[in-house]
């Protein structure tokens, strides 16, 4: 196990390395967004009123009348002061809106990943234990089906069946709108709303974790030290969980860490289908409304989350498997 110092130093170095990356991300996004035809002012002028006067006013309000490099300079300058700007659509500071939405996405993700990791690992271990049985084949096929299915399609099917046909669960949103008492009823209410989107979100990652776990477990189980342990008369289940599982955990961490950029993509679909008030929907709404500061802010925050996720992945890796050194 690594001591605190090298780990800390390593983390700091990695974060410092990421600063220029994030800077480039901002530049690239800024340029692409502002090169597109149309702007927030014309969008907003279409929902309020449509005079040249109104359009010009809005352009000035959003600073769009200045040359592009000046706009970028202003944006970066503000960014240095930790000011992400003012949302053109929400009429509030960007950071505030993001921080309002972030917890909902976090809750959804955390739940989904817990389901995905636990179910995926358990099923993967079981499948590897009964390798090449009928059950294993079925599970493998099911997992293939799981990630061959468009996520929004799965979500719609779940809504149709569990929310509309059986009427067991709510189809939309995060809270009941007819008022629930605070405390446990409120928690239960959120949980009820959480279930379907979390399952939808989890399915893809669960199948991924399942396959990787199964593969790694098979590989590990065939290795000498396991065979030795078995031959020494150690309890088979013990061997399975103590030795093999530890090795299989690495890929699980990878799936989530490395795929983080894609993880956010899943949130767009899940949150759109289920009306979940999180970041995924926020980005889509902001794109529709041409809310430039908002889009840039989300990109920045998510980019930082990706950097962080990669870092955490690597650290977890090092902790789980001491053979991997920090380089």
């Amino acid at each position, binding site marked *: 196990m690594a001591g605190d110092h090298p780990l800390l130093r390593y983390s700091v170095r990695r974060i410092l390395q990421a600063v220029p990356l994030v800077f480039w991300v901002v530049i690239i996004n800024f340029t692409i967004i502002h090169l597109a035809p149309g702007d927030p002012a014309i969008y907003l002028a279409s929902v309020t009123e449509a005079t040249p006067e109104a359009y010009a006013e809005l352009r000035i309000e959003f600073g769009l009348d200045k040359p592009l490099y000046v706009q970028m300079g202003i944006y970066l300058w503000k960014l240095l002061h930790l000011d992400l700007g003012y949302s053109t659509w929400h009429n509030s500071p960007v950071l505030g809106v993001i921080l309002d939405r972030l917890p909902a996405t976090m809750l959804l993700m955390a739940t989904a990943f817990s389901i995905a990791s636990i179910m995926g690992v358990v099923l993967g271990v079981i499948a590897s234990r009964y390798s090449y049985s009928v059950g294993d084949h079925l599970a493998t096929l099911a997992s293939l089906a799981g990630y061959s299915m468009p996520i929004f399609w799965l979500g719609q099917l779940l809504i149709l069946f569990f929310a509309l046909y059986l009427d067991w669960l709510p189809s939309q949103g995060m809270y009941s709108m007819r008022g629930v008492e605070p405390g446990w009823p409120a928690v239960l209410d959120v949980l009820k709303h959480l279930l379907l989107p979390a399952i939808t979100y989890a399915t893809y990652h669960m199948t991924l974790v399942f396959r990787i776990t199964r593969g790694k477990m098979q590989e590990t189980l065939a290795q000498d030290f396991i065979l030795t342990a078995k031959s020494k008369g150690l309890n088979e289940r013990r061997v399975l969980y103590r030795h093999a599982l530890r090795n299989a955990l690495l890929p699980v961490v990878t799936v989530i860490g490395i795929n983080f950029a*894609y993880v956010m993509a899943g949130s767009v679909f899940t949150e759109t289908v289920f009306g979940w008030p999180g970041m995924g929907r926020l980005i889509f709404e902001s794109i529709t409304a041409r809310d430039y500061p908002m889009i840039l802010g989300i*990109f920045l925050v998510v980019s930082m989350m990706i950097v962080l996720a990669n870092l955490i992945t690597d650290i977890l890796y090092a902790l789980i498997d001491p053979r991997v050194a920090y380089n």
Partner: protein
Amino acid sequence: MTTATDQIDYQSPQRGPQWRAVWDAFSQNRAVPIAGSVLLVLVLLVLSAPLLAPYDPYALGSGSRLGGHSFQNIMGVDNLGRDVFSRILWGGRVSIFVGFSAAFATTVMGLLVGTISGYLGGWVDDILMRFTETFMVIPRFFLALIIVAFFGANIWNIIFAISILTWPVTARLVRSEFLTLRTRQFVDAAHVIGTPRSTIIFREILPNAIGVVVVNASLLTAQAMLLEAGLSYLGLGDPSLVTWGRMLYEAQPFLRQAWWMAVYPGLGIFLSVLTLNLLGDGLNDVLNPRSSEIHRTGL
């Protein structure tokens, strides 16, 4: 930012297909021929759309609006009175085309960057990898959404957006493959006897790296088809073409009245993606027998 995970995931030494062995492996692997032939049938079906489709996929009066299955319309009729079967055939063409083109574009770009970076190393590698890393850190799916939403939802933009989304992973994959192969003895040997660089790349290394690339490409195709469907679902499909994704999007409001509008295109996507994934897995077993799991990314 060379991550520790790269080393684990990409380190699969002793590859390099001996074609004879590959053929043997194929004949023992059941998934590849089955998946391959299902895929082949699908591709042949959509390719022969002009011959097989009973109606113009855009013609309005091909059946009664939202009509069910009948002898005239074997997969029913959609909300504009268009024949679903004809649209499935024609739509599949575009969907599969988008899938393959995006995978092709990604592979070419990935190969280019990965090869240069992996073989030359040094400062070229540094620059290219920084560039790739920047793209790894951008929420690429959001970027793809923006490109399609702001610059117009035509099929080329969609292919471009999907390629933008996926190339960095391919590039890194190819690069790490090169890094591994470059240090191998047969390459050293070629160096020693004075073989030019380009020959080493094209004659010695690339053929050995091709297994990884092929597997990756088949998975990319599957991914690209899912992405196209996803963009279409968000209303960002090409308005002048029918695709399976667009059909799904159009079917959403009619799920309970005309399930056939959604089930068949959904099935089309599902089947193609499934077979492509099976194919990728099978190929991986055959071409990269030592690697237990391929590097997967997706939605």
